[in-house]
């Protein structure tokens, strides 16, 4: 948690002054913040396998990444998404503001609905992707990987709207897996089964409100829950105790990352470089170059990057394409180079795994057009398999395939399955 930074009164002795100053500058003692769920996660963290998620320490795994993955696919998995950047966007012009900032048509997003969207800079390069929750006609929550407050505030010029970051104030959980809705029901969230995919609704919790949406990052049945930070622990406990007999497990990012890859979902600054982070000019990506072209709505009003995107399409300046690959064999092709005819370098794999669900060796890769776009034959990936201190280079055939790699009927079934 944040440390006090208020200066203490100056003491008479030099020692006291020094220690007061040290105390006032203790921010460095907490290099990575904990989330509101930290006490519970710490208690379960058997592997002590942490990473840095937007300044928070978040678990890669908690006890066994393999079993955590299967908790998503066969039980219910609880994943702390509090470090995700969250903005509260409110006002009479909130809809118009978001319509100008983001690619998709926000006027089509009804209150009580969520959509996946992305936003661009003037040059049409993707700044980030994220989910937009419409909480009321005039109130939204925008969730993203990176931070964008200066961009959002400058975008608000000329709109009657307020934009506030609420990352710290709002705690978030993803509850994913086939038994997740049964857990919710057992936890007493009456009526949650009426939620259709991408619906959201508010439920009472611990004297406050929890917002539950039927969304997630796994391609599985599941939901995401947002509560004020001070209600976080009671929500965790409520779900864990209700889910005990339905196999609920807390999980880390490694398991989630596998599930999202099977679902064919991309991660900012893993599968593409966001525009404000890219240092090299050729790393910038337009939506059409990372598979997000479907979001672009030229029929709606003006939005950031529209002119540049139109020009790039008209002048055929789109140089890259993001594709799903199926690779022969069973060795994950993580960060492998993609070749055409085994010798011409045409791209790079950004995420890869052997998929236990699809029973296929899958990957997401960025290729230089026309490869992956009009030329999809004769593609290969070069996998360096480390075998007892020696690389074995494997040249494996890769086939461009549609994403998602798995499609689970239970994700969208209505009402959600009641295991």
């Amino acid at each position: 948690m944040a440390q006090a930074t208020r200066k203490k009164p100056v003491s008479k002795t030099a020692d006291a002054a020094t220690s007061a100053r040290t105390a006032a500058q203790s921010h460095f003692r907490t290099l990575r913040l904990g989330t509101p769920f930290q006490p519970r996660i710490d208690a379960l963290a058997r592997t002590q396998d942490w990473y840095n998620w937007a300044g928070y320490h978040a678990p890669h795994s908690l006890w066994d990444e393999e079993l955590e993955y299967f908790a998503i696919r066969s039980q219910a998995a609880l994943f702390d998404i509090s470090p995700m950047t969250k903005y509260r966007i409110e006002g009479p012009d909130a809809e118009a503001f978001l319509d100008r900032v983001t690619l998709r048509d926000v006027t089509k997003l009804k209150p009580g609905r969520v959509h996946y969207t992305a936003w661009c800079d003037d040059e049409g390069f993707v700044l980030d992707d994220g989910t937009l929750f419409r909480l009321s006609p005039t109130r939204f929550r925008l969730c993203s990987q990176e931070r964008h407050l200066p961009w959002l505030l400058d975008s608000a010029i000329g709109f009657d709207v307020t934009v506030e970051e609420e990352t710290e104030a709002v705690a978030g959980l993803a509850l994913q897996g086939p038994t997740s809705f049964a857990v919710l029901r057992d936890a007493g969230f009456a009526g949650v089964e009426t939620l259709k995919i991408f619906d959201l609704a508010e439920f009472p919790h611990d004297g406050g409100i929890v917002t539950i949406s039927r969304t997630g990052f796994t391609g599985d049945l599941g939901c995401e829950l947002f509560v004020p930070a001070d209600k976080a622990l009671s929500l965790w406990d409520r779900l864990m105790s209700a889910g005990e007999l339905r196999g609920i497990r807390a999980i880390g990012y490694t398991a989630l990352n596998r599930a999202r890859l099977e679902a064919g979902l991309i991660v900012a600054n893993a599968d593409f470089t966001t525009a404000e982070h890219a240092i090299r000019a050729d790393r910038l990506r337009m939506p059409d170059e990372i598979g997000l072209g479907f979001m672009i709505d030229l029929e709606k009003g003006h939005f950031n990057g529209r002119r540049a995107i139109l020009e790039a399409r008209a002048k055929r300046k789109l140089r890259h394409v993001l594709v799903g690959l199926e690779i022969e064999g069973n060795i994950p092709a993580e960060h492998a180079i993609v070749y055409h005819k085994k010798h011409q370098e045409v791209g790079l794999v950004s995420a890869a795994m052997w998929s236990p669900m699809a029973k296929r060796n899958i990957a997401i890769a960025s290729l230089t057009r026309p490869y992956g776009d009009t030329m999809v034959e004769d593609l290969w990936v070069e996998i360096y398999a480390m075998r007892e201190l020696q690389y074995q280079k494997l040249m494996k055939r890769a086939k461009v395939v549609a994403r998602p790699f798995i499609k689970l009927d239970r994700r969208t079934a209505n009402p959600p399955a009641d295991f």
Partner: protein
Amino acid sequence: MTSFDAIVIGGGHNGLVAAATLAKAGRKVLVLEAAADVGGAARTEEFAPGFRVSSIAHVLNRLHPDVIKTLELEKHGLQVARTDFMPTVALSKDGPPLVLHGAYGEVLTGSTPSEQSAWKELRAQLLRYAGILKLFLSRRPPDLAGMSLKETAALGQIALALKKLGKEDMRDFLRVLLMNVADLLDEQLADIRLKGLLAFDATLGSHLGPRSPTSLLGLYYRLAGETGGAAGAQMLPKGGMGAVITAIRSAAEKAGVTIRTAAPVAKIIVEKGRAVGVALDSGEMLRARTIVSAINPATTMLDLVGPREIDTGFVRKVKNIRMKGDAAKLHLALDRPPQFSGVDAAGHKGRLVIAPSPDHVERAFNPSKYGEFSAEPVMEITLPSLSDPSLAPAGACVLSAVVQYAPYALKEGWDAGKPKFLKAIMTQLGTYAPGIGKSVLHTELLTPADIEARYRMPGGHWHHGELQADQMLMSRPVSGWSGYDTPVEGLFLAGAGSHPGGGVSGAPGLNAAKRIIAMKG
């Protein structure tokens, strides 16, 4: 209803030049002017019964020769003769003034022989270097994103001109380009009156003091202008600046331009990223293939188009254009011509400058950084009725002065500050023209806040954006969009806020029109 190919917003001189040029190229053009008359800040207006004055711009020194040629302004009544060139007088409290005769001091009087020869050398050098920059005035700034063959060739010509200076001169050109004017003057001159005058001319109309880095550019900008083919020459147009407007207007109307005054534009209508027309304050809608805005770039993009139709990054850039003026305009109706100490009759018809030394100009500038006006302001004064008696009743006299520094955002507010500033100005004037205060019949002082309100110039800045190194050439009005086009297709900028900048030059208007014609807009 008549339909138009192009609608020009703003009937200032650049708007009229753009309209006339487009009409001459065969387009049907409508000019919409918000005020009751065209001319913008280059009008001749009556400020007291029987007293008329050039409203803001009062010295003609940079009307671009291409504008005169393209619009055939001489056929429309514009007269420029060498005999009209006015001298510049550097006023002095003690002793005779120093006078620059002809085109920016072809002859210098009132100084020592050694200073005269030093000036001759410096003047030649300044004009040589300004001559390089002059080549940029009548074309689009270099486009870093890619240039046509023609544009690249034009840039090549400039490179060639630079090379033709010779190795030593070229090195020196590059050395001094971004210097402050005071340091350069200290290198070459001794007379503080001459240095004061040049320091004043370099910083006139900008938020810079003579010791601010890059302040020399302002002097180059001035000297890149020409009148009657002579660089740096200046004159008072007969009938005031409004007479120049009358000539341009006449050329525009002859070419078939329709002009509507008292027709303020409320909105530029954008459909699917393209400007398709304008809506007037009255609610009337007018459509055209091309919309040319010859008003302020920030007003155009943020108010008329609106942030909703443009990208956030562009809004950021436009909002960051610095345009807070520092120059006030003083108009005095005098019951008799004033007598400036030690100045002869010819001198009184010239440009009289109060800037006794670079230090004085610098000290006048200092308070403006902190939102205060100069206690001892510097100014350039003209007495236009001496050479054009039609501007004042018989025996009376008009005084027109540009006074610095009067920061737009005055800390105490201009309501409270204006009377105090006027007092400081009159005290300063009285020192150089004893007894002038007693002959004042009527006073009009326009602070930047007044100029903003009256002439719709945000910040009261006559360049519509500080003319400093970071807001020049390919960075004017904003980087990436310096070539008169905008992110809104079919919408072009043609005012002083675009390259090359302000002053009665017509260059932005002409360049914009040429760009539109080249784009078949």
